[in-house]
């Protein structure tokens, strides 16, 4: 079990509680299940790495339990009860410097749990409003989290001062009929080198907020498509964002000017989760059509496609996709694929030579005619 789990570079959770690890080298998905009895209660809603070394996965299920999965051992090591199913499902999971765990439920209760001692009582609790759709942790400052939801704007919280949000976004200006604009934050991400946060909404908008400025309204607004955007991810470059909507359209947007750079084709169902590779220009997407697809961001071509035995997991509900860091063994195969871009310069050279020859021959013909 341990060896198959070590092979997997992409991890997904499914609707039936099965954790699927996908090995891209073998183009195969492996199932890891806690109990022999599958049930819809165990639907995986949130997934995150337990530690920076990426050796443990924290899996949050609908019934309020958070399970720890060890990648080395290939099995679930412990289960913690972190909240009632009555609160709603998990919308975010994050781990704080090893021992603590931050969970956020749909009803808005954000709780910090300590591993030692406090089994049933959270160490800190705060209310992030109603109908929260997503909670994300800042990669630079682990004690900062952002939440957002339906009619619940973006709020950035500092867990050390849980009374008031550090930044609470204002809704957009009223539209041309003076009607209040509805807001529905579906997903957000912290932009690495600055304070900015980018969010995507259910009204097909992408907003960038800058807490360092006094402006509480979005600094940049981009519209894409006609369907709600469900997932968001930041590629390694820094100026772009990849978004996916309920129709299976994935696009790369440039945040400098707010233009659509290009779309990634192939998905047939709504996008549930997007994850970019931390250093390479690759993005993994999974959706309701039960396929995991890896696209290259440079030429927007699909590199890998793995069928996730829906069936069960019907990875129909697959959530976050996480990728391991530059693990040479695993990403070697990816490098092979990337050889094709290297060929491009040579092709271009050949093309140029041919053109020159053609031009020469044309000139000769013209001379002949004359």
């Amino acid at each position, binding site marked *: 079990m341990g060896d198959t789990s070590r092979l997997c570079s992409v991890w997904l959770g499914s609707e039936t509680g099965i954790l699927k690890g996908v090995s891209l080298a073998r183009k195969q998905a492996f199932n890891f299940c806690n109990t022999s009895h599958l049930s*819809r209660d165990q639907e995986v809603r949130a997934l995150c790495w337990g530690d920076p070394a990426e050796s443990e996965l924290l899996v949050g299920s609908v019934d309020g339990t958070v399970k720890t999965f060890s990648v080395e051992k290939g099995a679930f090591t412990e289960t913690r009860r972190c909240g009632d199913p009555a609160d709603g499902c998990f919308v975010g999971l994050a781990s704080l410097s090893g021992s603590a765990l931050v969970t956020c439920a749909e009803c808005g209760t954000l709780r910090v749990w300590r591993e030692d001692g406090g089994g049933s009582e959270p160490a800190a609790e705060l209310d992030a409003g109603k109908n929260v759709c997503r909670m994300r942790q800042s990669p630079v400052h682990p004690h900062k989290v952002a939440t957002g939801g339906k009619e619940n704007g973006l709020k950035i919280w500092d867990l050390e001062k849980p009374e008031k949000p550090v930044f609470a976004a204002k809704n957009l200006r009223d539209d041309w009929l003076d009607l209040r604009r509805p807001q529905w934050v579906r997903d957000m991400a912290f932009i690495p080198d600055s304070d900015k946060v980018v969010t995507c909404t259910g009204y097909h908008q992408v907003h960038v907020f800058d807490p360092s400025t006094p402006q509480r309204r979005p600094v940049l607004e981009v519209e894409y498509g006609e369907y709600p955007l469900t997932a968001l991810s930041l590629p390694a470059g820094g100026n772009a964002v990849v978004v996916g909507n309920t129709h*299976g359209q994935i696009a790369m947007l440039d945040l400098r000017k707010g233009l659509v750079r290009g779309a990634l084709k192939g998905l*047939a*169902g709504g996008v549930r989760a997007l994850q970019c590779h931390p250093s390479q220009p690759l993005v993994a997407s999974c959706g309701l059509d039960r396929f995991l697809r890896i696209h290259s961001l440079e030429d927007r071509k699909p590199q890998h496609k793995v069928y996730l035995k829906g*069936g069960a997991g019907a990875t129909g509900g697959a959530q976050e996709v996480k990728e391991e860091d530059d693990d040479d063994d695993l990403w070697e195969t990816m490098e092979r694929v990337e050889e094709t871009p290297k060929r491009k310069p040579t092709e271009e050279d050949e093309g140029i030579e041919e053109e020159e020859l053609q031009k020469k021959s044309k000139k000769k013909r013209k001379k002949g005619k004359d």
Partner: protein
Amino acid sequence: MDITEVPVSQDNKGKKKKNKKAKKKSVSQEGNEESGGVETKEEKMEKSEPAFPPTFSVSEIKNKQRRHLMFMKLKQEKRKVKTYKYHKKEEKEREALGDKAPPKEVPKTIENQRVYDETTVDPEDEEIAFDEGTDEFSAYFNGLTNPKVLITTSDRPRGRTVRFCEQLATVIPNAHVYYRRGLALKRIIPQCIARNFTYLIVINEDRKVPNGLVLCHLPDGPTAHFKISSVRLRKEMKRRGKDPTEHSPEVILNNFTTRLGHSIGRLFAALFPQDPQFVGRQVATFHNQRDFVFFRFHRYIFKNEKKVGIQELGPRFTLKLRSLQKGTFDSKFGEYEWVLKRHEMDACRRKFQL
């Protein structure tokens, strides 16, 4: 006349092909004499006709008249293959050879050449069995609910659509037709759920002809949107039987092999009650071929153990799936499990989704 015609035509051909005939004789002679001559082979290829190298095609002959003649000959041969005489001859040869006959060539069809779909469901797969056991249709397939169908149309339907709805209601047991009255579907759905309906069918009309179907499974089930084509009402059916009775029909679902096909198949199956009344001898068939679902409704009678007679009753129509959405009807904010993206999916003629 007959006697004279033949030599005339030969002469004509002879005149045009004088050079060729002369060459033919010489070449055939050479051919007979030299069986292994490598040097002269190239010459033969240039001039000859009877012994063509395998990669030769008619279009390589530069002379238009000769090319035309060769092409006509080719066409005649092809036509001959299709004739009855030719087939009979082949059969006789086959019988004569007996066991040594080469195997019959299976003609290539698009269904034969279908690209293998990795989402094809394996009947013994546990994961899929579990998934299907706990999905939205589980209540129906476990016998807990009986189907109750509400059929309606888009606003202000005209003749054909109204008659189509009425006929559908006779085909599907426990179906009720209601006039739309311009109501919003999102408001109708909670009311249907309150009145224990399990299905909502909305037939969309365009220019007095039904062209779309929205099939929504009610408590919280998937919504499928189809395109309808070739609707034939009862009056237009040839050799049809009498009107269908109130008995529940049997349901036949053909060729729904992929995971998506399974979902759609279950969607259709859950429209009809679980126990068919065999007394009624009626059967509804949903046949999937090349992503088109053909609906037929028949009455059958067994004449003896091996022979069945069927009468087609009821409407017939063809459906093509356009999108499958998770949850009840919500085209703006719903999540789609599958959307038909024509330019991406219809690019390969041999790849099908259902």
